């Protein structure tokens, strides 16, 4: 599906794993789906992970087939680097405005050869590597990007014009402007995904200030052999880390930072990363400081026991403060909860804050559905039909509805697709929309 039609049965907001699953499940039932993604590529957070728990599958190896299936499906139109700016009830269904951002590259002509990127003279921090690595002002986000086309970040452009000069298909178009498109849709599935709790939420941990205090997605990037360093190294000086601490609940279960809930995945991703580091770096000393370990899912408890058996120290302790000492090492002041609350100070090469999950989008000014007290979209029937929202015809899936792991996000996406399909049949969307267009 190459052309942008005027009407789709379903709109999916978000091209991460939940959004792609919802789009595929609708498309397989012969509904036409428009999938909108704000980033230059679909794939969401999952395509940037190293491995997943508890199976230790390569994350992009299991995510990219879904990405390929989505882009090649005859019933799915993917519009990346775009945002939904308005969803208005329009019986039947909704009138939706989509803003296509300017890539300054003609997508249909770009062959993803990266010649523009190689010719560009300036490097800037790469969002995909969480600032630890570099990209050029004109760039393809990563090797698995779909669409595999370049995007020009005009805020960091030097206006040298080299990218257009070297492009073999003359697809660099400096005259592009953002474009607004209106479409009619029957049902909407919001799968807008997650952000991690801001690193500077707790000033005493030094996140966002101390370079060797990492965010967990940054640690995913440096663990990957295709990451910014090619191997796990310290960002401050390239040292091979020999001693690493994980601080659990750094961005969750804390009223003082506005994230009172448990984010469900932090214990598991910390255990996963710690185990992989033990495999990558011989003899590395890793300690996970926690309040309690939550390993609730299928195979999770077994994985937790395996991680401890393979030499990762899992210690009940509350980290009070992290300070930088000489050589940009880090000193942790920790209250040892299993030792009567004894306060200890311990030195590490690197610290990873196990930050929680917060919603990436609140829909304000775009869609008229309520948020819950936790800031995620409100589910009106959280026990029986968790994908239903306060607006008929709009459904939620994945972390947009609340923190969850990948299997739960995929299952919920399927549920949202089914509810959307039932809704489309109930309102007779296709027949009524066709009649309205003829009238």
């Amino acid at each position, binding site marked *: 599906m190459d052309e942008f039609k005027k009407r789709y049965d379903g709109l999916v907001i978000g091209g991460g794993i939940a959004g792609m699953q919802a789009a595929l499940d609708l498309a397989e039932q012969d509904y036409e789906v428009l999938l909108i993604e704000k980033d230059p590529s679909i794939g969401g957070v999952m395509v940037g992970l190293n491995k997943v728990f508890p199976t230790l599958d390569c994350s992009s190896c299991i995510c990219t087939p879904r990405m390929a299936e989505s882009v090649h499906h005859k019933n799915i139109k993917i519009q990346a680097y775009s945002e939904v700016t308005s969803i208005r009830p329009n019986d039947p269904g909704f009138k939706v405005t989509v803003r296509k951002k300017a890539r300054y590259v003609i997508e249909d002509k770009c062959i993803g050869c990266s010649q523009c990127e190689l010719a560009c003279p300036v490097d800037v921090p790469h969002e995909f590597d969480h600032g630890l*690595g570099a990209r050029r002002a004109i760039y393809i986000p990563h090797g698995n990007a779909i669409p595999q086309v370049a995007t020009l970040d005009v805020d960091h452009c030097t206006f040298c014009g080299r990218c257009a000069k070297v492009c073999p298909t003359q697809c660099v178009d400096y005259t592009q402007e953002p474009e607004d498109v209106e479409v009619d849709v029957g049902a909407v599935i919001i799968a807008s995904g997650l952000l991690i709790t801001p690193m500077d939420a707790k000033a005493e941990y030094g996140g966002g200030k101390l370079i060797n205090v990492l965010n967990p997605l940054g640690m995913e990037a440096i663990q990957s052999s295709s990451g910014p360093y090619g191997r796990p*190294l310290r960002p401050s000086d390239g040292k091979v880390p020999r001693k690493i601490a994980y601080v659990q609940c750094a961005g969750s279960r804390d009223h003082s930072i506005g994230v009172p809930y448990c984010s469900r995945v932090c214990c598991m991703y910390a255990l996963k990363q710690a185990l992989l580091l033990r495999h990558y770096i011989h003899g590395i000393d890793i300690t996970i400081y926690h309040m309690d370990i939550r390993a609730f899912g299928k195979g999770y408890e077994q994985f937790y026991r395996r991680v401890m058996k393979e030499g990762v120290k899992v210690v009940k302790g509350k980290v009070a403060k992290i300070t930088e000492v000489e050589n940009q090492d880090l000193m942790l002041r920790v209250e040892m909860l299993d030792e009567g609350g004894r306060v200890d100070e311990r030195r590490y090469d690197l610290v990873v804050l196990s930050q929680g999950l917060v919603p990436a989008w609140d829909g304000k000014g775009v869609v008229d559905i309520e948020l819950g007290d936790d800031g995620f979209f409100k589910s009106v029937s959280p026990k029986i039909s968790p994908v239903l929202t306060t607006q008929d015809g709009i459904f939620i899936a994945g972390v947009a509805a609340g923190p969850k792991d990948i299997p739960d996000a995929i299952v919920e996406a399927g549920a949202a697709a089914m509810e959307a399909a039932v809704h489309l049949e109930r309102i007779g969307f296709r027949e009524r929309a066709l009649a309205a267009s003829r009238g």
Partner: protein
Amino acid sequence: MNDTQENQAAAAQTAREKRPIDILRERHGGMSPEMKDYYKEQTRIRKLLGEALGKGTKTVPELARECGLEPQVTMWNLMAMRRYGKVVEEELRGDYYAYRLKEVK
């Protein structure tokens, strides 16, 4: 108008038409002062690193000392050079990998 005058008129018209990159530059207001400083500094750092590596393989701390740069600035720039094929990793020296310039064939 004869042929020469027509050619001259066409050349004048082309000179007056703006190139697409000029249109984008004008529309965006050109490079911001911060971006200009950033680019200038990056060019300076890359020159220093290139010259230091040209004298032999070095670790990040060695490069930082020789070039008078902060180690974390050295690390980020060196890894950017590595990503785009200018630098390759060599042997491990203690806790630090050494890097060298990649030969251009």
